[in-house]
């Protein structure tokens, strides 16, 4: 692959970066996994109970994973394609200590793709780095970050949907929401692995495009293309050009922004002038072309011009409308982001709300549920006493039974929604202490008799099953 050094617009540079990524995708992808793979494995061993933290850690360490592909690419662009062993040996150089800030307080920066080559290859520090970045600008790196993030998302969702579509029609479809929000089940791990794969696929493109932006910007600012031409034309530069211009350019890249001494110093001014004129005489510098195009300049008649003048809105109104439209768009975008966050973040209870909405809408795909089994109140004793006070013995027993089911689930017992009283009792036998099991058995017996058998149950026997009363009874029994 031949890369021509010439000034490029940011979009051309991005295109060059994606072309580089396509050409060397395998090597860049391997470089990414050389650092990401071990980290993912070790993190999975440590955080296997916390898949969200595992995913967050890997996402946060992306700059460290991208350093090795960047290092390899910075060599490959200038003709030095490192083998795998050499790449592994270069790990200490590719992951210097100055990478840490990229993984810490600079992690969220939108211009990371552009600032990484500056930080890792030029290695300026502190104020010098800031000045250097200010001088280079950031090009379209923020757009690059945005597009690559979206690409990751698209690949991730596509992977999940592909897996879902591979399930034969008619087989029970897994709940896809668990791949996004609920931690723990296999589908969430599968979703997380797919996101890691999506990150690894996009990373070579991101790194290469950021590096190409960096090259393009430096070519534009520091006239590398001219310098290469000068070098080819100078006696010493000619030898370099015959050997390939790349090593020279590499030296330039790695020698920071300081202008390097050129071979022109050994020429006389007359010789230099002649060479400069020869260069300027080349088509790249002296070519002029005359182009004729039609341009609409408006109507000739004064009346039409006057009518047009009358239709023009006042400048202040145009300004106000534009400002209003801008703020409306900002508001819409903010609203959409908030709605998306509320929908996706488990901390906001989005999943629960979604399930509740689906129940309310009566979606046919979801299994029908008992609509009259609300969550037991926090103060169960007060609620039971109130139910007994108004003569609702069945309601009081229902509260106690649901509280028992909730407690059983809190102990880690997997009780499905369809678990009946006998199933709860069977499951509880292996988990509960004899005292608690006795209370549960009593609650279930009275509940079944009152609710399903319509048999009279004395309120005081229900009140005796309240947690505090049960403890007191047990204490007295032991005493």
């Amino acid at each position, binding site marked *: 692959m031949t890369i021509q050094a010439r000034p490029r617009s940011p979009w051309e540079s991005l295109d060059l970066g994606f072309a580089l990524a396509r050409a060397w995708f395998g090597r860049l992808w391997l470089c990414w996994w050389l650092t990401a793979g071990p980290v993912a494995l070790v993190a999975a061993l440590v955080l296997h109970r916390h898949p969200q933290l595992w995913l967050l850690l890997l996402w946060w360490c992306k700059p460290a994973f991208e350093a090795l592909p960047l290092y390899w690419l910075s060599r490959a662009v200038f003709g030095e394609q490192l083998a795998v062993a050499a790449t592994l040996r270069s790990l200490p150089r590719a992951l210097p200590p100055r990478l840490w800030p990229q993984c810490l307080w600079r992690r969220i920066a939108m211009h990371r793709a552009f600032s990484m080559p500056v930080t890792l290859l030029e290695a300026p520090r502190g104020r010098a780095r800031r000045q250097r970045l200010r001088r280079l600008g950031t090009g379209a790196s923020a757009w690059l970050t945005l597009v690559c993030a979206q690409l990751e998302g698209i690949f991730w969702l596509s992977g999940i949907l592909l897996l879902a579509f591979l399930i034969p029609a008619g087989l*029970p479809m897994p709940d896809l929401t668990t791949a996004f929000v609920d931690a723990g089940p296999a589908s969430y791990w599968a979703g997380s692995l797919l996101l890691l794969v999506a990150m690894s696929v996009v990373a070579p493109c991101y790194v290469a495009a950021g590096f190409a932006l960096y090259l393009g910007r430096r070519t534009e600012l520091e006239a590398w293309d001219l310098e290469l031409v000068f070098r080819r034309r100078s006696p010493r530069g000619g030898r370099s050009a015959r050997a390939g211009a790349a090593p020279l350019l590499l030296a330039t890249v790695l020698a920071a922004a300081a202008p390097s001494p050129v071979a022109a110093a050994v020429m006389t001014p007359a010789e230099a002038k002649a060479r400069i004129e020869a260069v300027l005489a080349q088509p790249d510098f002296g070519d002029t072309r005359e182009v004729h195009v039609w341009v609409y300049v408006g109507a000739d008649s004064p009346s039409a011009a006057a009518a047009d003048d009358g239709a023009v809105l006042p400048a202040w109104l145009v300004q106000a409308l534009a400002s209003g439209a801008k703020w409306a768009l900002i508001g819409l975008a903010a609203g959409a982001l908030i709605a998306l966050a509320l929908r996706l973040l488990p901390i906001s209870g989005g999943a629960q709300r979604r399930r509740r909405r689906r129940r309310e809408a009566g979606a046919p795909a979801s299994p029908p549920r008992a609509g*009259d089994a609300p969550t037991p109140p926090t103060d169960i004793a007060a609620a039971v006493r109130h139910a007994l006070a108004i003569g609702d013995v069945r309601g009081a027993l229902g509260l106690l039974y649901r509280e028992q089911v909730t407690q059983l689930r809190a102990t880690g017992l997997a009780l499905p929604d*369809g678990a009946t009283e006998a199933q709860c009792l069977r499951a509880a036998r292996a988990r509960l202490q004899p005292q608690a099991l006795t209370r549960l058995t009593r609650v279930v017996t009275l509940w*079944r008799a009152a609710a399903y058998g*319509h048999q009279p149950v004395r309120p005081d026997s229900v009140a005796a099953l309240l947690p505090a009363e049960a403890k007191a009874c047990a204490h007295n029994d032991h005493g």
Partner: protein
Amino acid sequence: MSTANPPSDERLQDARDALGRIERAVNRTVLGQRQVVREVVVALAAAGHVLLEGLPGMGKTLLVRALAHALGGRFARVQFTPDLMPADITGHAIFDLQTETFHIRRGPIFCNVLLGDEINRAPAKTQAAMLEAMQEQQVTVEGQSLALTPPFLVLATQNPIEQEGTYPLPLAQLDRFLLKSYMDYPGADDELSVVRTVTAGAVGDTLDVSAVEQVLAPAQVLALQATAAALTLDDAVLDYALRLVRATRDWPGLDSGAGTRAAVALVRAARGHALLAGEAFVSPDDIKAMTPAVLRHRVRLGAELEIEGYRPDDVLAELLAAVAAPRA
């Protein structure tokens, strides 16, 4: 919802004892098929018919004969074959040359317990001859409706493997069976007992049910069925049964779900199960226990699930876990 006159404790106790005696009597003869025997006894209490499915030699015929022996009453057996005609089951009119009149000769269906052996070997026309009898407890012969003597219980068997030369039962016919029970291979110990018992002093292949004592008279069976029908049924339990049946209609993987008759059958079977368990009321556990037997022949699996080797019981188990049981 509850019945106006729930059965007394004494009546409940009698019914439970009678069912327990029948179950024990049949279990003494048919070894290693406790679940199937229990389901058949539940169907007896619920006054429903049973379709028994199992490989040859699993004891299907023996079970039915033992049950008929324990119940007393009249027992009949029809071996379904491709050339069997409806009149061979229901009966027909014959011309009496002496009196020059037609007389109705009643078929084997006029009994208390009918064993329809290999029911799927007869064509649909003959199978349909039993629809009226199973649903309305009557038979029409030569335009004349003849009532069957209650209790009337049909126990039909079919072989799930051999499909050549068989006529699968249509859904309308299947729906008439309250339950469908699978007779699987017995455990090693049970099988050993079967072989030892059957071969001890026996000559030939005869099925000896003489050891089964008669436990009930037909009239007592009717009383027992009335007791089951009078058990208390709460609205929450009824709602649970209905939600289970309705869930089959939208459940992924099922081409067709169960109809309203299935909901009725589920409640009836649950009453029988509750009575057999000695309860005075129907609970969600009874509904859940009977759901596979009541619904497995009323739902139709999608082609994909069948190819994947799923059985209706697998889907019903998922459905039972997902449909919320009443808790308030």
